[in-house]
């Protein structure tokens, strides 16, 4: 059997979303057309917009439909920067947490290189939580020169929930708008746009059981955003492009369903995840849980008992010392267990995660990372399947880590060192 433990990458579509998507695919009509087919499509889109807004605590007019989370993040970061810097050329600073998804980090660094922005990466603690003092210090030093703050709702790799209430309060003291990438949070934890005080929020379709290729930016009424895509002027001129009627409706149904089912789903998934964490620790004593600990083993954390951990319910993230993530992933995949190394993958090239590095994890430890993410279809059998094979997979990956680390690495206690100094010589390795 196979076990799918990568819901944070994408999660199976909800049956209700599939039903409305396939039904809508058979209908014709451009939502911008003025005849009856167009009006019908427009009505479907607007009903979807209302459904999305209601599920997320926003007004319908605050929903800007996009082709996904990455586009929404780009629109937020670039649109806010261009708009703010355009109104006041001194506002060129962009404050983002160091653990943001690349869809936020890369636009921010691109603006620094090409548009005169000054991008500041805000540090996080060992669990991946934003350092609020650092944010306060940056705002105090140059609040009036800051264009925006972007801090994700929940981290995609280690699941850490960010203290957004405090972030918003700090930034708004200086009149700085705040964007949050909530792609991983919607359907997992309560997300209420109005209550959050945020100025902009990103949500994605396929992470909540909707279709791929659609998402939205919730943008507070009155927030000035410079468009990234220009054209037909759809979405109040902020995001041009023919509206995707079928995907909009399926997206809305998925968000609505996921948000309604969240209390039950989250409780069930939390129990599965806690079971997974306990059993991985038992089966692989060297494994190190990264991010906030949902099942503290020691009395030191017992005082926090009763507080919900500041972590996504379905997320478990471990590093396995002496192992390479690619060996672990290969071993698990061969055994039918699908998960992620949790690192940024460009064309499948594994690189140490910037999230783990920002949390202070050493590069060689960061290489042995695995993210297990559970979702609405997860069962106890998935966790059982993982635990059936994980000890053997880790053992082989350790052996492979020793083998591929080279002669210098073999001498080391954990197999790291990767042949440093073995290269220039032409000694005994031959």
């Amino acid at each position, binding site marked *: 059997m196979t076990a799918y433990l990568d819901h944070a990458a994408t999660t199976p579509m909800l049956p209700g979303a599939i039903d409305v998507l396939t039904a809508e695919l058979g209908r014709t009509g451009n939502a911008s057309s003025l005849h009856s087919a167009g009006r019908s499509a427009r009505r479907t889109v607007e009903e979807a917009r209302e459904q999305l807004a209601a599920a997320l605590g926003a007004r319908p007019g605050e929903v800007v439909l996009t082709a996904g989370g990455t586009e929404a993040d780009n629109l937020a970061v670039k649109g806010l920067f261009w708009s703010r810097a355009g109104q006041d050329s001194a506002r060129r600073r962009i404050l983002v947490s160091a653990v943001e998804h690349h869809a936020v980090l890369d636009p921010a660094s691109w603006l620094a290189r090409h548009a005169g922005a000054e991008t500041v990466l805000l540090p996080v603690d060992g669990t991946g939580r934003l350092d609020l003092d650092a944010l306060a210090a940056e705002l105090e030093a140059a609040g009036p020169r800051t264009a925006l703050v972007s801090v994700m709702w929940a981290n995609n790799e280690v699941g850490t929930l960010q203290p957004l209430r405090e972030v918003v309060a700090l930034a708004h003291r200086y009149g700085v708008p705040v964007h949050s990438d909530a792609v991983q949070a919607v359907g997992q934890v309560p997300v209420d746009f109005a209550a959050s005080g945020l100025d902009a929020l990103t949500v994605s379709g396929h992470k909540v059981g909707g279709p791929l290729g659609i998402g939205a930016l919730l943008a507070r009424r009155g927030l000035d955003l410079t468009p990234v895509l220009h054209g037909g002027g759809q979405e109040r001129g902020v995001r041009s492009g023919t509206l995707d009627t079928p995907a909009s409706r399926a997206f809305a149904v998925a968000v609505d369903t996921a948000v309604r089912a969240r209390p039950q789903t989250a409780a069930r998934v939390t129990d599965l995840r806690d079971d997974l964490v306990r059993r991985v620790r038992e089966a692989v004593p060297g494994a190190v849980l990264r991010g906030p600990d949902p099942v503290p083993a020691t009395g030191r954390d017992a005082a926090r008992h009763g507080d919900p951990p500041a972590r996504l319910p379905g997320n478990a993230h471990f590093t396995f010392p002496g192992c390479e993530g690619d060996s672990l992933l290969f071993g698990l995949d061969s055994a039918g267990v699908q998960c992620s190394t949790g690192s940024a993958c460009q064309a499948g090239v594994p690189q140490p995660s910037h999230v783990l590095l920002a949390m202070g994890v050493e590069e060689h430890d960061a290489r042995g990372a695995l993210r297990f993410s559970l979702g609405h279809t997860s069962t106890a059998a998935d966790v059982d399947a993982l635990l059936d094979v994980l000890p053997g997979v880790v053992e082989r990956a350790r052996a*492979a880590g020793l083998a591929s680390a080279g002669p210098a690495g073999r001498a080391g206690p954990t197999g790291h060192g990767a042949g440093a100094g073995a290269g220039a010589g032409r000694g005994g390795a031959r």
Partner: protein
Amino acid sequence: MRVLAALSGGVDSAVAAARAVDAGHDVVGVHMALSRNRDQFRTGSRGCCSIEDAGDARRAADVLGIPYYVWDLSERFEDTVVADFLAEYAAGRTPNPCVRCNEHIKFEALLDKAVALGFDAVCTGHYARVVTRPGPDGSAPVRELHRAADLAKDQSYVLAVMGPDRLARSMFPLGDAASKAQVRAEAAARGLSVSAKPDSYDICFVADGDTQGFLRERLGSLPGDVVDVDGRVVGAHDGAYAYTVGQRKGLSIGRPAPDGRPRYVLEVRPVSNTVVVGPADALAVGAVLGGDAVWLADDVVGAEPAGRAGGADWFACQAQVRAHGDPVPARARRTPHGGVRVEVHGDLRGVAPGQSLVLYAGTRVLGQATVEGTERA
């Protein structure tokens, strides 16, 4: 067998993997990420060639219906192949990075990792043949490494560095391919989109092919003298590492030679940072001394001699010192401490320390060593 097919993204490794699948093996494709160029914020970069290659390798695996993974061996590659390349040039020697890559990466780091993860063998698109013969008197079978059927594509030279143990876990399904054209036709017939992809020739980590520029960037400028065989200064250079024995072009020599004949690099002396030049006939080599020898034919070359005295028995062979150089008739014998002495009977010119010396008997590879020094003819 469980076979790991190393997929570079080129046509050869794709067809080799296809043949391994056809042979009934349980094949998994792996692309090695070797570049350490980590563009943290990828905005603006359209991806380097290795990302394109990784995509081609992935599509080849899709077409073959085999799993595909990328393994990051970039740190090991930098620490061994690139570091060795720089250290060798800095020491006035002429390395072959492809030999070092086969030695340390493909048939060590990759192979060892594969074996640890449960694979029986690594399959590559190299053009060479492995021939298994029954051992003498019923002993274990002997594996021989031979030149490819297509001598124009033969790559046994860069594989000879492998010892018998590693050879036993290697598969080269293209060894008996008639020609590269045949391999391309086979790729096209199998629906592999890389069938018409151009061959790569340059050193993979010197992206623009400018080896001298790469060396200058990594080793810095180090001006010194160009001298003739009598020690007279005849010119200047910007870094002795940029010169290799036998080189004629690129010598900035002010005065012409007294006899008016062209001059060649005869020697690079890193300690005094000088480049010695002289006439072509001074390049002729009579004997080559090799070190760090690896042998694949104990039945021919015999045992290593004990002690300091002389060497073992002579054996007849052909010596090759460049990937695409012609083999030269020679005789050789093992010397103590992993050495070999080769006396050539033909015309061999411009042999530089650091080069890979491979000895053949016909198509069979007898062994490999690194050139330590030469004696003039």
